């Protein structure tokens, strides 16, 4: 149930904006949508497909009960992938460079954005999409930087999908030749499967998580383009072999770009920033 308007959009994602407590937009999944009666409908990008016909039980078409097999050979993620390609086309047309940040909860995604955005902003307009199950805490932190930001609350959902991003970008004032950072829901498993239309996937791990993470959660490391090892300021206090972790990550994905940083002390951030700016210019 939506806690803002009281409608029963169980589990559906909601878009929110920092400092605008009345603002919220439901992202409905189409065929699983439900009748939705709101005032202020202009704020609700609800997609209802009313072409569903629940006409079983009327007894009017009981034919001979013939059974047959229909071949589909359809990719299960096709719908998401098609929508992601539409997002990608939009980003390309506006020359927006999009990064999808993935990590387990607390690895430092928001902290990294808080640190890197003020530096990037001097050269490129930046916008952010924040994904969390609940709260606008992360969007509030980004908003404090004076950056265009929207929060997607996924509710029970454990990852962002292309539809949520598609709705979110309609609500953002995205500029041409800009950088868009998408912070996915903290989760090292599910977000790996859902293309959002980004240019690159950035996976972040921190030194408190164990250097065998890439072997335990290979899918996300396999899908990522960049891996950032964060919190290296804590290396003296934890049992974590950074070289071993890198080796494990590269075993899963030999194309992975590897960075080691401490968002807290600033160590390693200049290299990552330099790399990012080069990519942005080339983009």
């Amino acid at each position: 149930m939506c806690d803002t308007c009281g409608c029963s959009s169980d589990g559906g994602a909601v878009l929110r904006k920092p400092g605008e407590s009345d603002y919220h937009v439901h992202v409905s999944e189409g065929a699983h949508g439900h009748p939705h009666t709101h005032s202020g409908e202009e704020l609700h990008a609800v997609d209802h497909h009313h072409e569903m016909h629940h006409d079983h039980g009327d007894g009017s078409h009981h034919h001979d009960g013939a059974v047959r097999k229909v071949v589909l050979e359809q990719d299960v993620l096709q719908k998401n992938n098609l929508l992601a390609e539409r997002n990608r086309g939009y980003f390309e047309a506006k020359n927006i460079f999009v990064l999808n940040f993935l990590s387990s909860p607390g690895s430092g995604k928001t902290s990294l954005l808080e640190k890197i955005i003020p530096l990037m902003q001097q050269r490129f307009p930046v916008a952010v999409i924040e994904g969390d199950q609940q709260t606008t805490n992360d969007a509030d932190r980004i908003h404090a930087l004076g950056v265009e930001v929207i929060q997607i609350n996924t509710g029970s959902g454990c990852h962002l999908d292309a539809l949520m991003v598609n709705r979110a970008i309609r609500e953002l004032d995205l500029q041409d030749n800009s950088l868009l950072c998408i912070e996915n829901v903290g989760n090292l498993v599910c977000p790996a499967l859902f293309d959002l239309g980004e240019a690159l996937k950035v996976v972040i791990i921190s030194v408190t998580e164990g250097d065998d993470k890439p072997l335990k959660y290979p899918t996300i490391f396999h899908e990522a383009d960049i891996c950032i090892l964060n919190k290296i300021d804590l290396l003296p206090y934890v049992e974590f072999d950074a070289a071993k972790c890198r080796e494990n990550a590269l075993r899963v994905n030999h194309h992975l770009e590897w960075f080691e940083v401490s968002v807290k002390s600033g160590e390693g951030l200049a290299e990552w920033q330099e790399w990012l700016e080069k990519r942005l210019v080339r983009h």
Partner: protein
Amino acid sequence: MHEMSIALSIIEAVEEKAREEGAGKISGVDLVIGKLAGIEPESLKFCFSAAAKGTLAEDAVFMVEEPEGTGECGDCGMRFPVTFYYAECPGCRSLRVKIVSGEEFLIQSITIEE
């Protein structure tokens, strides 16, 4: 839990197809989920009963075929079975291994009743 949202999208896709075909009921759904697809077939099956409730697929039997992973060495060209991405070529020890099968995730077919 991405299995639930995936179960919902599968139900949506098979219902759409079944309607197109004028079916009144879906009695079976055949899926292909490669061993490297990042999907747990058991948890997915678990989600179907909830996801299919009140749909044409409510009583459908979900069958999953799970093709094994196959890697191809980028150095010597050898093909061999792999259980995960961090495969090493058994021929030349190279780590430049490309996954050539096992990542499938398809709705293969549905069985419908008119």
